[in-house]
């Protein structure tokens, strides 16, 4: 598999230029053609901002202060201009289908707004392609729903419209920003199945930002775990979920309930809370909460590095001496 999208050394800043805060510092990852890549972390870990930076759609007040973003074209990775990549190479799905669909446009017009602006599709072309797209994302009655307004649809159908809108320009990678968080569980499942089917059918790469480890487990090939604006561990989902190489990932996984989790005992939790962008400790940012921390952890910022005896990469200094028995794989399948 060849690399499709490469983010390296991404730094995002907010606040004044003299004393900026860095919600995201030196984040990097690669996504191959047709691959499903998960970006997991708690709220505030910088995962959504990272995703928005990839399309250059950062919220007001957040700026990219460093890093390179590259997309494969004609077999070569090249830095891209956002205006060029949006729609054509990179599509994006947003968390809230209620607010991400323009309320003053009919569903059919909304779905093909991108290609109409990009490729100058005629009204007729747009109309028939809109019906194809709405059918592809599983709208029960595309013809009727194309004429409806977004507010007349349920949350699940709205998210399908959002997906159709992102697919209209035929992107090669689909960025999904917590696309199921705002939906109820039954609908979540439908949308996840839909994304999986579209990915297989179209050979699409997917970057999935979520705090739901179960979703990553189910959908993704590889994963990067983010904590306090950094990637602390990255690797294949199978490896990370069974043999985490960073105490934070291990803690996250232990706190995830499984069907076998005893109900009369509290869930395992990591003590303390994630530090905000302004209160990050020197050295390893997880050290103050880490049961394995050594004095050296506080002084040294440890970059992602290969781990002996594991295909994952970890930012933990002690990874070599922490290799305990693997977590029970069966318990983690949801």
């Amino acid at each position, binding site marked *: 598999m060849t690399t499709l999208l490469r983010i390296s050394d991404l730094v995002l800043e907010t606040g004044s230029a003299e004393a900026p805060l860095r919600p995201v510092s030196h984040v990097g990852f690669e996504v191959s053609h047709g691959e499903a890549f998960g970006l997991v972390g708690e709220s505030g870990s910088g995962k959504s901002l990272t995703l928005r930076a990839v399309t250059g*759609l950062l919220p007001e007040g957040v700026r990219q202060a460093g890093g390179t973003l590259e997309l494969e074209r004609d077999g070569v990775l090249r830095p891209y201009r956002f205006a060029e990549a949006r*729609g054509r190479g990179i*599509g994006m799905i*947003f968390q809230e289908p209620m607010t991400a669909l*323009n309320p*003053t446009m009919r569903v059919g017009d909304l779905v093909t707004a991108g290609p109409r*602006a990009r490729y100058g599709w005629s009204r007729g072309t747009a109309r028939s392609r809109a019906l194809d797209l709405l059918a592809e994302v599983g709208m029960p009655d595309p013809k009727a729903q194309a*004429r409806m307004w977004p507010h007349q649809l349920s949350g699940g159908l709205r998210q399908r419209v959002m997906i159709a809108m*992102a697919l209209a320009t035929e992107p090669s990678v689909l960025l999904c920003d917590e696309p199921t968080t705002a939906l109820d569980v039954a609908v979540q499942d439908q949308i996840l199945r839909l994304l999986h089917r579209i990915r297989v059918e179209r050979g699409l790469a997917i970057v999935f930002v979520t705090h739901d480890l179960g979703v990553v487990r189910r959908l993704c090939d590889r994963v990067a775990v983010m904590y306090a604006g950094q990637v602390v561990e990255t690797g294949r989902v199978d490896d990370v979920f069974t043999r985490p190489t960073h105490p934070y990932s291990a803690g996250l996984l232990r706190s995830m309930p499984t069907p076998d989790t005893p109900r009369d005992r509290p869930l395992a939790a990591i003590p303390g809370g994630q530090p905000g962008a302004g209160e990050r400790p020197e050295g390893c940012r997880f050290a103050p909460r880490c049961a394995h921390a050594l004095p050296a952890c506080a002084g040294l910022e440890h970059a992602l590095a290969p781990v002996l005896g594991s295909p994952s990469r970890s930012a933990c200094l002690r990874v070599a001496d922490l290799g305990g028995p693997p977590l029970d794989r069966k318990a983690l399948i949801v």
Partner: protein
Amino acid sequence: MTGRGRFRFVGKRLLQAIPLTLVLLLLVFAMLKVVPGDPALQVAGPRASAATLEAIRVHLGLDQPVWLQFVHYLGRVVTGDLGTTATGSTKVSTLIASGTPVTLVLLAVSTVFTVLIAGATALLAARRPDGLADRLINVVAAFGVGVPTFWLGIVLLAGVALPTGAFPIGGWGDTPATVLRAAVLPALALSVSVAPVLMASLRSGIVEARRSEYHAAAQAAGVRGWTLTRRFVLRNAAVPPVSLLAALTTLLLSGAVVVESTFGLPGLGLSLTQAAQNRDFNVIQGLTLVFSLAVVAVNLVGDVLVALLDPRVEV
């Protein structure tokens, strides 16, 4: 909303306007019953005998019970009979018919000015929120709201019409060209106090739309350029200003009363001012009714426009 839903919406709004109009008629009728002053005395003069006054009261129907007077009033209004002026020389309906085109042209031109001024400044201000242009426009807008319309009218007459000679010093025209020329300065004087309100609403609408998730989602889907501005910014930002414009037309209408006096335009406003000075009750009553009905109509149109722009609007 589907086509039929819209049709139903308009019908519903029209039906709602009927009781409102009746209440208006009652208020306009009651207005003159509660103000002090005797219309008969006004007609006959202070030295008229009691018998003359009584005869005039009977002639005017003022001796009948109030509810009957109202019923008679309703009947007359429906047939377009609003009585005569105090001197008896002209029908009030004739007065209204001759003044209406003047006031309508004035309002139309000033609405165009208001929309143009508000639109241009809002777009400029919203380019960079809190930027230099935004703050400058904000200050000028505050002045615009504060400037008294009659004073601005005089300033325009003395500062523009007099030195340039391009516009008449008051008065109306008799051909479309002279009419439009005569309307420019008074319309401008009217717009200046109203445009800032519309500008502020439009500006915040544009800024809000640009910050919205649907704007980001559209960009992510490859929408850009004029399509992005037109369909994902202006279309959404236009909803609040359109309903506001209906309310502002009311403001324009009351401003027209002032401006028509300043510029000596033979419109409904000038008639109203003169009638008030002469205590000409029939004229005041007729004009108040026309103005009130105009406000009802404008709000009706505004509601319908908003429903067309924003599909979420339901009643």
